[in-house]
């Protein structure tokens, strides 16, 4: 089945719950089969089916609850230059975060940041594909990615200091 593992993993991260992830994946495949006629040949199938899953999530109770919590900063915020750090290549390699710490930090991200980070880093989608999947402009994709990564770094930094 096309993209089954990727869709399941994405659904798991959106819902944080295996039962809900299964419902979401099942709904996605049924909607994709039912609405395949709406898929335009030659366009991006992966973005299309991930968009179905994401829309199904947004209409679920968990999705509505998650998207009610929106960050105060604007999406149009310029991607500011990162502040200077005292890192060195050695300290970065030695201070590598554990898998558990990364999962915890990812789980704490607001869903609008988590989804773009997953699509970029895990699914290796281009900015264009993410833009099509999430239905936001490419500039907003870049802004959300920047803020997601900044939040991840801060969370991981806090965890290693704490």
């Amino acid at each position, binding site marked *: *089945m096309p993209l*089954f*593992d990727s869709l*399941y*993993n994405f*659904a*798991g*991260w959106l819902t944080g719950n*295996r039962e809900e*992830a*299964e419902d979401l*994946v*099942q709904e996605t*495949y*049924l909607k994709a*089969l*039912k*609405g395949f*006629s*709406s898929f335009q040949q030659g366009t991006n199938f992966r973005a299309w089916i991930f*968009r*179905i899953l994401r*829309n*199904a999530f*947004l*209409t679920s*109770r968990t999705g*509505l609850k998650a998207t009610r919590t929106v960050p105060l900063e604007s999406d149009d915020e310029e*991607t500011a*230059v*990162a502040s*200077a*750090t005292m*890192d*060195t*290549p050695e300290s*970065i*390699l030695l201070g*590598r*975060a554990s*898998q*558990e710490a*990364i*999962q915890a930090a*990812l789980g704490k991200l607001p869903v609008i940041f988590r989804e773009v*980070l*997953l699509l*970029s*880093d*895990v699914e*290796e989608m*281009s*900015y264009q594909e993410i833009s099509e999947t999430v239905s936001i402009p490419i500039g907003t994709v*870049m802004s959300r*990615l*920047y803020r997601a*990564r900044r939040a*991840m*770094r801060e969370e*991981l930094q806090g965890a290693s200091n704490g």
Partner: protein
Amino acid sequence: MASDIWQPKIDRYVDAELSEEEMRAMDAHLRECSSCAVQALRQMRLKHDTKLAARRYASSPQFRRKIADQVIANQVIADQVGARRPVPWRWGWAPLLAAAAMVLLVAGIFLSRSSEQARSGQLLSELTDIHVANLAASTPVDVVSSDRHTVKPWFQGKVPFSFNLPELAGSPFTLVGGRLTYLDHEPGAHLIYNIGAHHISVFVFRDQPDLAHAFSTGESSKDVLKFHVESWSAHELRYFVVGDASDESIHQLTSMWKEAGNS
């Protein structure tokens, strides 16, 4: 500082989103600038580690089998429907070509109409599915209020349009509330009304080209699986009223919505 120019590009460099020329320039810069090199290395490490750590959820073999079975079952149905399509004839007689062309022209018009009808049937079927699934839900609405001035603002920022709800004073209808819904991947508003023991759903969507094409006749009134459905478009919005209440009730609510939409 030179780094100020390069640092904002580091994310795009790590994500391989720079042009070839910019990638080469960035490579050259990273060999010279330790500050940017450290930052790029840190970004690459985080991206790599995130990829590994985020592969967290794996399905059970049973669930995978269940979905595969459903996909196959749907494919079989689709193949059976496809097999019933008529095979085109091959006529080699020149004098009959004109007649064949005429047949094809008529068939083309007929198939175009059939395709519109099939699409509108599919969309109406999806809406009745949403209506029925909603009746069975433990919390059928996300905003619970009989006050239209509470329900309408709830949709602001959730749907890419604005719409008016009718005043219900003096009518037999009660507004239960509203929820966000999707049709063909487009967000829309779903309002639920009560009349006696019956529930009626009103759906509002942007009148996208696909919807406009499927409902090219403008207004329609149909019965789908014993549900009465009325549909119309006005001011670039497409409305649907779905329910098992009497045709008169559905029509009355439809008229009230039309009036509100024009006010």
